[in-house]
C-alpha cells in the first residue's frame, strides 16, 4: 500500500515537472523576454567563474591537445592558415570592390563595407555540448556594443551572425550552420539569391533560392567558375563581405531556378580572433520575399547530365 502511494506520488511529481518544462518551452519559443533575461543573468553571473576556471584548467586542455592535436604544429598551422585566408579574402574583396566601384559609378547605391564600425573579439570557446557544433562564444558582449544579428567576419570573409548577447560575451552562429540563410551576390553576374551551408559538407555553401536559370544556353549568363560571392546589399548584413568562390552551377529540380555551389572563403572550424561589424541589422529580413516554403533541391539526373553548365 505504502509502495503504491509512493509510486503514485512519484508519477504526480513527474507530470508536474513535465508540465513545468512544457510551459517553459512554450514561453521561451514565443520569445518571452523575462525568460531570456533570466538565462542571461545566470550566464553573466557564472562568466567570471568559468573564465577563472578556464585559466586554471587550461593546462589540461593543452595537454590533451598536445597529445591528440600535435600542439606546436597546430599553432603554426593556425598562423599560416590565417595568413592564407586573409590573402584569399583580399583577392575576393578586390574583385568585389572593383565591381562595386563600377556599379557606384553607374549611380547605383551600394554600401561599402570599409565604412562599417568594427570590433575585434577573441573566441572564448567553441561548442560546449554535443549539439552546438556551429556555435562559438566570443569575449565581447552588450557592454561593448554588440547586438543580436550583427555580422561576424575575419580577414577571409563571413564567419556568421551574433545569435545571443550577454553582458560580457556573445554567441555566434557560424555560416557553416545550414539553418543560417545569407543573402548572397554573385559578383560576375550581379545576381542576388539566398544561400546556406550544405549539411555534412564542410566548407560548402549553396545558393538555391532567388536566382533564375537563364532561358537560353548562353554560357555568359551563368556565373563564372571561381568568381567571387559576397553578401548582398539587400541582406541582413553589410554588403560585399566575402563569402567564397563559385564551384559549380546547375539547374534546380524546378528547372527554373539556379543552384550555385560555393566554396566558403573562411574556415570556421578553427577560429581564434574575429571581428564584429557594429551595424544594427534591419528589423525585417529584406530578402524574405524570395524565400519559398520548401527548399529547391538538385535533380539527380541533371547533376550528372548537366556538366556543361558547371564549366
Amino acid at each position, binding site marked *: 500500500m505504502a509502495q503504491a502511494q509512493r509510486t503514485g*506520488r512519484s508519477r504526480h*511529481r*513527474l507530470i508536474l*515537472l513535465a508540465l513545468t518544462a512544457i510551459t517553459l518551452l512554450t514561453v521561451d519559443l514565443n520569445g518571452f523576454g523575462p525568460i531570456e533575461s533570466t538565462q542571461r543573468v545566470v550566464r553573466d553571473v*557564472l562568466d567570471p567563474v568559468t573564465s577563472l576556471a578556464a585559466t586554471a584548467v587550461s593546462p589540461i586542455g593543452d595537454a590533451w591537445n598536445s597529445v591528440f592535436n600535435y600542439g606546436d604544429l597546430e599553432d603554426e598551422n593556425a598562423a599560416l592558415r590565417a595568413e592564407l585566408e586573409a590573402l584569399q579574402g583580399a583577392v575576393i574583396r578586390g574583385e568585389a570592390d572593383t565591381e562595386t566601384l563600377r556599379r557606384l559609378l553607374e549611380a547605383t547605391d551600394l554600401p561599402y563595407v570599409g565604412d562599417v564600425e568594427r570590433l575585434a573579439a577573441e573566441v572564448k570557446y567553441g561548442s*560546449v555540448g*554535443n549539439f552546438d557544433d556551429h556555435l562559438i562564444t566570443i569575449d565581447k558582449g552588450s557592454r561593448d556594443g554588440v547586438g543580436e544579428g550583427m555580422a561576424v567576419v575575419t580577414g577571409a570573409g563571413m564567419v556568421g551572425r551574433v545569435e545571443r548577447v550577454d553582458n560580457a560575451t556573445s554567441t555566434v552562429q557560424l555560416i557553416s550552420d545550414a539553418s543560417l540563410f545569407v543573402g548572397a551576390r554573385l559578383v560576375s553576374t550581379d545576381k542576388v539569391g539566398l544561400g546556406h551551408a550544405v549539411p555534412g559538407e564542410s566548407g560548402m555553401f549553396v545558393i538555391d533560392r532567388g536566382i533564375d536559370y537563364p532561358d537560353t544556353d548562353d554560357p555568359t549568363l551563368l556565373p563564372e567558375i571561381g568568381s567571387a560571392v559576397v553578401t548582398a546589399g539587400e541582406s541582413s548584413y553589410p554588403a560585399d563581405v566575402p563569402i567564397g568562390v563559385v564551384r559549380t552551377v546547375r539547374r534546380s529540380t524546378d528547372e527554373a531556378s539556379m543552384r550555385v555551389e560555393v566554396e566558403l572563403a573562411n574556415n570556421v572550424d578553427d577560429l581564434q580572433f574575429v571581428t564584429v561589424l557594429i551595424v544594427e541589422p534591419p528589423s525585417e529580413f529584406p530578402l524574405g520575399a524570395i524565400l519559398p516554403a520548401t527548399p529547391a533541391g538538385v535533380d539527380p539526373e541533371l547533376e550528372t547530365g548537366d556538366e556543361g553548365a558547371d564549366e
Partner: protein
Amino acid sequence: MTILKVGAVFLVSIVLQLTVFVDVRVADVAPELLALVAVLAGFLAGPERGSTIAFGAGLLWDVWLPTPLGLAAMAFATVAFAIGSIEAGLFTDSRLQVSALAFLGTFAAVISYALLGEVVGQRGLVDVELLRVALIAGVLNSLLAPLMMRPMTWALRGPLALGGPAPTRS
C-alpha cells in the same frame, strides 16, 4: 543543506563542462556531465527526488544550450524517473553496475533530448550522428560515473557516505 550541496555539485559540473570538456573530447564528443548528475540522482534518490534534481540539472544545462529552455530538463527528469523507478533489488552498488547505468541513462538522455527537440521544431538534432554521439557520450559518462558517485553521494546522503557504507536507495 542538501539543496546547497546539490547546487555545489551542479556548479562544479557546469564549470567543468564549460572549461575542461570544451577541449577534452573523444571523436569530437564531450561527456554530458549534467546528464550524469541526473542519472545518478535518479539512482541515489529514487524517482521522486531524483527526477526533481535531474530537472534542475537539465534546466541549468538548458541555459547554455542553443535549444529552448526546458528541453534538457524534461529529458533528464524522465530518464531519472525511469532509473529511480527500477526495483531497488536490481542493484548492488558495484562500480560496474553504476557505470552500466550511467551508460544506459546517458544514452537515453541524449536520445530523448534530440527527439524532444525535433518534436518542438528544433531541426538538425536527429541525424546520422545522433547514435554516434549518444554512444560515445554514454561511454565517457560510464567512465566518469565512479568519480561522480562520491560528490553525488555526499550531496544526497551526507558525510557518512564518504568512504562509509555503500549508499542505499530510498
